[in-house]
């Protein structure tokens, strides 16, 4: 049977094999490995069987630690078991990995290798995770390409079963895990031939079973542990030969030949590079190119890294080699060199000692680092390394791909050097996430890869913001296998799918001379040229680009596609590129449309067909004028008044030139200034809200719910309006407390709004003449951008109201306080950020935040710009993200320090009482600080204290000065999502709330792992569809609030802003005021619910009205007053839960995919809701205090 050719990415290739040759799969989501688990779960839920005819069991665990424990257990009881992970996830598996290897247990973990967080988190690829598990005893096998991933997934399993050594099969995160390539798919027969059933039986025979009981996992003492450790040696010694044996067997079965160390290049090469992973592909391409030009170089691809076979290694090195560069995609600070470099030196030294040195003389060996966190690794860089090797004294411990101007490790390279083949079509497409560009390109690769003889490659680069994000697709097509594991930088086709990109990015920068430029323009053919920035015009002329223009927005509108221009632009690409005859291409596009959308109904298919049909009539070749006389200019990434760091560093990252930043400009310890989003004006929304001051009742609800803090109210003296712009609006401030000369303005930040319209939805004031209008209404942004910019700037200069004078206990007052969390990269209409922002308003000037990894750490801390901000006094939240699993503990650490420093400061005050004056000391020691007035007073005292301390030259004074600020009350906030609080971080969270320490925990409960793409958590409701719960989650949502209440001394609140904003404000204030642990569970509507985000707050209301989401506050302080601590803030459910649930795709889609199951689960969900109400209602009725007896 012929093996099918498929165009898939690395994760799918690995999962395809792993799912076929395992029985149990224990998983946990982590980028970029999550999709391997998702594929497995999907295939199992579709009933797809493994090669032995049974459907593998796929189980999501609470963490990678949990997954590895489950894997260990499943292996011990005899199942063929696997898991998928990366980065910190792999590190959490280390303890079990030692056990699994120590017990000689066959298994393969498939790892999409990713950076381990150090000075910062990075989701991108390098080998720092796999290098961190070298000592576990696992074998390490590296795949360099998508085909190899599929092949090695099988080979590693065959080896592991025979060798009894567990394996990590790894490949580069993103570059390989997400790159799409045309590959040959293995057949089940291939797998059956490779996997020896007798070895499977042997594995099962070792199972723990009461029918043949044994004991494994003893505790050993100094007498025998050491010997026990040495018992495994024969297995490790035999392993490399077994790997080669299986590679040879694979060659016989499938035809592809692999060796433990594969040499490629000139037989008599003098310079070689040694490396593993996707970078080897780029080196392969460069070696071929340079050798064809007369060079004499080679490359050694390391496949089996552990167990490292010196014998096989030396056999692979040509005798002629004089110098070797060993490249590591990891960094081991403080080591002599990185791991592979050290291994190569050791291997050759040992070889020399043993008399088996392959080369005539001991070669020069240098080590270098490349490609950390998916940094580009291009032929230009590779050539620089070969050039370096030719030198008498090549630089050792070098870096390549960066400019290290601090310790000068980096090699220079000529970025114009290229090895791209002439017959390769290299295309770049700039699109918006929302316009479907990536999806269409994935389809194009499938069409070309599967329907033509061409090889195809696709790689996709995404934005660091979740809303209005730009995507860049890099596609290659050609007659030969594609080894270019780097981005397209010599494009002969560029598609700009959004006209607005032209004002911010040089989209034709990577175009080669004579390339084709396809532009989606909302303007007429005549107008289009004038709207292009002048420098881009010049580049188009200079590069002699052939230009095509289409108004895809119009075609999309007319064919009912809305904003999705994907199939239209895809049709243009095929029509222009001529990669297939036009008619045939259109037929194939329609074929993939049918395949992609057919399952979702005929109407979608018809709509897309119609878009394809109408495209060609609207596509025009544009004759490029001779002159670049446009008046448009590209917009600077940040304004001139931005601070120096923002100008020098942040702006470069925004402009897409971050790769060029030298080491010296990057902070050395991961510390960054806050408040930088204000400088990045994204202008991503075509519509923004406009305030109607005559209708407004000044309730400030719009400001409260605004996820991006772009709606700001201010109350101020009329005098300040003297220099106001003519369109600046104001109205007399409502409220008894304000005199006649006090005015109110609600101002919108026009360039920061993402256009969610939640403000309009929540506005309670309707226009009496025309009820469709409210006090805030959406309007087109471009016509008012400039005037509103001016108004916004004026508004910012109006002083903030004195916090001491603001009644912050209600919604209206809370919103007068300046938000210190603004313009984040969260999704349009995000349900989390309004809570986060509210905390920043209420306590931001004295808050330190521990943020669990997840959505909130990404929109809170992803470069280039971050939203946590400072007030005019320079105070604001200090924020940090440690890990996913440890956030509660991390935050508790903050509290321990603050309490300790406060205690120490008070001790020092006591000691220095006479020097400092009793009154000041007493004041500082006994200050109440229960409100803003108290806090301001204490700050004043601390200032006085500092003044005095500056004049005292003693050790005590210096110590006190360094911690004096801790005398002012600090508020510790621990924030994160439900994946953290309910699952991976629950143990820590539980411990922290049990500690009694004064920390405030805000759980942004979206009921799903939002950041990694919607995987089920224990917060997911029964009946909701999520990844890993494709058939609807069968189990009930965990009642985290109830668990916390069981301690009795934890303040617990369940809130939903859309149902009761007043209760939200009240609960957050009470939680912070409570001198002990507080836990707030905040209902956060989410894009992963599949809802109209504009109506997110209405869903929150329905959630409470149906009893799905309870509103309550449990305040232990009430117990002391003889009252029941539990106060319910919601009433008996008044609507059935389905009326809430079926507005959301997560529930509704089950009625379409598994209607019977949906019905059953909805009945159970209703029962859950009824029970919850019954339980809470009864709990809240229990009498406390004297009446209790």
């Amino acid at each position, binding site marked *: 049977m012929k093996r099918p050719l498929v165009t898939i990415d690395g994760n799918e290739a690995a999962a395809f094999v792993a799912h076929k040759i395992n029985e149990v799969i224990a998983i946990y989501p982590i980028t970029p490995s999550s*999709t391997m688990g998702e594929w497995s779960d999907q295939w199992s839920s579709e009933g797809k069987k493994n090669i032995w005819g049974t459907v593998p069991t796929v189980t999501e665990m609470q963490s990678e630690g949990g997954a590895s424990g489950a894997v260990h257990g499943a292996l011990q009881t005899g199942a063929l078991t696997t898991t998928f992970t990366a980065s910190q996830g792999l590190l959490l598996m280390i303890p079990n990995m030692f056990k699994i290897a120590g017990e000689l247990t066959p298994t393969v973990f498939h790892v999409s290798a990713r950076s381990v967080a150090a000075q910062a988190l990075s989701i991108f690829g390098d080998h720092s995770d796999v290098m961190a598990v070298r000592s576990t005893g696992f074998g390490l096998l590296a795949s360099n390409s998508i085909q190899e991933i599929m092949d090695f997934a099988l080979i590693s399993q065959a080896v592991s079963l025979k060798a009894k050594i567990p394996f990590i099969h790894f490949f580069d995160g993103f570059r390989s895990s997400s790159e799409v390539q045309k590959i040959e798919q293995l057949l089940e027969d291939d797998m059956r031939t490779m996997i020896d059933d007798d070895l499977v039986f042997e594995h099962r025979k070792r199972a723990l079973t009461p029918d043949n009981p044994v004991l494994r996992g003893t505790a050993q003492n100094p007498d025998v542990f050491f010997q026990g450790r040495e018992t495994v040696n024969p297995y490790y010694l035999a392993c490399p030969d077994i790997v080669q044996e299986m590679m040879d067997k694979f060659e016989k079965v499938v035809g592809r030949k692999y060796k433990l160390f594969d040499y490629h290049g000139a037989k008599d090469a003098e310079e070689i590079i040694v490396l593993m992973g996707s970078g080897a592909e780029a080196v392969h391409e460069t070696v071929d190119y340079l050798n064809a030009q007369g060079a004499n170089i080679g490359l050694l691809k390391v496949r089996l890294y552990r167990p490292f076979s010196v014998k096989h290694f030396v056999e692979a090195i040509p005798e002629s080699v004089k110098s070797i560069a060993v490249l590591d995609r990891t960094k081991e600070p403080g080591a002599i060199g990185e791991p592979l470099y050290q291994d190569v030196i050791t291997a050759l030294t040992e070889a020399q000692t043993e008399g088996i040195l392959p080369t005539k003389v001991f070669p020069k060996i240098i080590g270098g680092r490349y490609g950390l966190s998916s940094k580009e690794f291009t032929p230009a860089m590779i050539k620089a390394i070969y050039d370096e090797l030719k030198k008498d004294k090549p630089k050792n411990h070098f870096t390549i791909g960066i400019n290290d101007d601090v310790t000068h490790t980096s090699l220079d390279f000529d970025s114009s050097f290229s090895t791209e083949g002439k017959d390769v079509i290299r295309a770049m497409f700039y699109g918006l*996430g*929302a316009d479907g560009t990536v999806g269409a390109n994935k389809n194009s690769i499938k069409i070309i890869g599967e329907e033509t003889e061409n090889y195809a490659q696709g790689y*996709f680069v995404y934005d660091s913001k979740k809303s209005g994000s730009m*995507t860049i697709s890099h596609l290659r097509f050609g007659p030969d296998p594609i080894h270019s594991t780097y981005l397209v930088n010599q494009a002969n086709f560029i598609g700009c799918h959004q006209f607005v990109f032209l004002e911010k990015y040089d989209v034709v920068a990577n175009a080669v001379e004579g390339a084709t430029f396809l532009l989606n323009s909302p303007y007429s053919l005549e107008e289009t040229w004038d709207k292009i920035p002048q420098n881009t015009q010049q580049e188009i002329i200079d590069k002699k680009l052939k230009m095509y223009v289409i108004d895809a927005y119009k075609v999309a509108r007319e064919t009912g596609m809305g904003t999705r221009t994907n199939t239209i632009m895809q049709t243009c690409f095929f029509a222009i590129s001529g990669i297939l005859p036009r008619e045939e291409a259109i037929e194939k596009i329609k074929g993939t449309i049918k395949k992609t959308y057919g399952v979702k*109904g005929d109407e979608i298919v018809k709509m897309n067909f119609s878009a394809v049909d109408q495209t060609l009539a609207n596509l025009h070749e544009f004759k490029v004028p001779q002159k670049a006389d446009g008046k448009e200019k590209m917009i600077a990434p940040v304004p001139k008044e931005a601070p120096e760091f923002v100008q020098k560093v942040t702006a470069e990252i925004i402009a897409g030139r971050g790769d060029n930043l030298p080491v010296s400009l990057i902070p050395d310890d991961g510390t960054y200034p806050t408040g930088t989003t204000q400088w990045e004006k994204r202008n991503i929304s075509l519509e923004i809200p406009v305030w109607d001051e005559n209708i407004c009742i000044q309730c400030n609800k719009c400001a409260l719910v605004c996820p991006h803090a772009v709606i700001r109210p201010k109350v101020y003296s009329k005098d300040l309006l003297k220099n106001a712009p003519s369109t600046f609006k104001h109205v007399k401030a409502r409220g008894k407390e304000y005199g006649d000369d006090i005015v109110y303005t609600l101002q919108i930040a026009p360039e920061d709004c993402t256009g969610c319209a939640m403000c309009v939805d929540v506005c309670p004031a309707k226009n009496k003449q025309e009820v469709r209008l409210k006090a805030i209404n959406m309007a087109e942004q471009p016509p008012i951008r400039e005037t509103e910019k001016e108004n916004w700037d004026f508004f910012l200069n109006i002083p903030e109201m004195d916090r001491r004078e603001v009644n912050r206990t209600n919604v209206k007052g809370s919103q007068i306080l300046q938000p210190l969390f603004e313009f984040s990269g969260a999704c349009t209409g995000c349900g989390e950020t309004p809570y986060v922002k509210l905390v920043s308003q209420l306590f931001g000037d004295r808050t330190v935040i521990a943020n669990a990894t997840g959505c909130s750490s990404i929109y809170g801390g992803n470069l280039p710009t971050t939203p946590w901000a400072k007030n005019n006094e320079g105070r604001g939240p200090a924020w940090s993200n440690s890990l996913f699993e440890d956030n509660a503990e991390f935050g508790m650490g903050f509290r321990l320090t603050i309490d300790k420093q406060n205690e120490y400061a008070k001790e020092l005050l006591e000691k220095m009482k006479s020097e400092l004056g009793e009154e000041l000391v007493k004041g500082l020691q006994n200050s109440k600080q229960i409100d803003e007035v108290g806090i301001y007073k204490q700050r004043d005292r601390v200032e006085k204290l500092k003044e005095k301390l500056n004049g005292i030259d003693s050790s005590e004074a210096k110590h006190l000065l360094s911690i004096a600020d801790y005398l002012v009350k600090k508020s510790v906030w621990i924030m994160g999502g439900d994946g953290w609080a309910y699952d991976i971080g629950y143990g820590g969270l539980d411990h922290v709330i049990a500690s009694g320490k004064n920390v405030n925990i805000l759980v942004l409960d979206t009921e799903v792992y939002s950041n990694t*793409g919607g995987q089920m958590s224990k917060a997911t409701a029964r009946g909701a569809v999520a990844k890993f719960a494709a058939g609807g989650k069968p189990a009930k949502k965990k009642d985290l609030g109830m668990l916390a209440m069981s301690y009795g001394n934890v303040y617990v609140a369940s809130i939903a802003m859309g149902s009761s904003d007043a209760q939200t404000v009240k609960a957050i204030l009470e939680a912070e005021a409570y001198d002990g642990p507080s836990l707030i569970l905040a209902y956060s509507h989410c894009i992963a619910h599949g809802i109209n985000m504009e109506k997110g707050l209405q869903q929150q209301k329905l959630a409470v009205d149906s009893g799905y989401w309870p509103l309550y506050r449990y305040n232990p302080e009430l117990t002391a007053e003889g009252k029941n601590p539990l106060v319910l803030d919601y009433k008996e459910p008044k609507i059935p839960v389905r009326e809430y649930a079926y507005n959301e795709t997560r529930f509704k*889609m089950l009625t379409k*995919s598994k209607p019977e199951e949906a019905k059953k689960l909805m009945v159970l969900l209703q029962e859950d809701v009824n029970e919850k109400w019954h339980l809470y209602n009864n709990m809240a009725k229990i009498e406390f205090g004297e009446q209790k007896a």
Partner: protein
Amino acid sequence: MKLETTYMGLKLKNPLVPSASPLSKEISNIRHMEDVGASAVVLESLFEEQISHESQELDYFLTQGTESYAEALSYFPDSEVYDFGPDEYLKHLSNAKEAVDIPIIASLNGVSIGGWIDYAQKLENAGADAIELNSYYLATNPEISSQKIEDNYVEILKAVKSSVKIPVAYKLSPFFTSMSAMAKRFDEAGADALVLFNRFYQPDIDLENLDVIPNIVLSTSHSMRLPLRWIAILYGKIEASLGATRGIHEGTDAIKMLMVGADVTMVCSELLRNGIKRISGIISEMTKWMEENEYESVEQMKGSMSYKSVAEPAAYSRANYMKALKSYI
């Protein structure tokens, strides 16, 4: 007592048919209807909007926010199969056919000439004994003339008729300038039955929130006057069967409808209000009345008080209006 009637060629054991309502969403309800004597069941409507929008809506929400951020390229698991409104409806129709012996009339609701019409054939293939086509075009656009709207109604009927072999009933609104002329046009276009009349839910206004809100008011016996009059007028003038719907709550209501010429009488509000078991109640009330008044069969009374059979046909037309006014004096 012979309660049998023939409705657009379907031989029914009695003239009582539950009309399209949410009750027929459940197979158990359809079984119950048969058990308590319903002679056929009109299923709840399959709406044009369901056919055209539901899949688009799901696609929109499943793709919202996808392929935008590297860590979350999608938010939902893929499913190989989705049953949309139309598919679910077809399944439900076949299940209903399997569950009961009485005829099942599928209801198709739409106003434009579009893809939804193709579903008529799918309904036939799924086992429908007949189709009740339900069109109601709210003429909000001042640029579209009444002639155009009327032509559109006829076109829709023709399109459906030409795609199926089973009988097609047309459930109509009363808002035609010339009901008789339209009835004739529908008759000529091939309608096997006309069902008079559809009830439309008129929205209300919520004064507190200044919102337009749906407001469902169930019918009472008073609502039957309009169809009663028009069935009386049309009886004998067209070949198509006549179905009476609106305001039938008691046995005597059904009797009145039959007397003016209805072939079947359809009930909905009564069942929603007092339960499916009311079908047997209405049938026994009918039987009792017929016994007391010595009627032998439904056929005997059918049309006996129609426009052409009464002594003073004018009572159904303008003269009756004068009389009604006088009765208030």
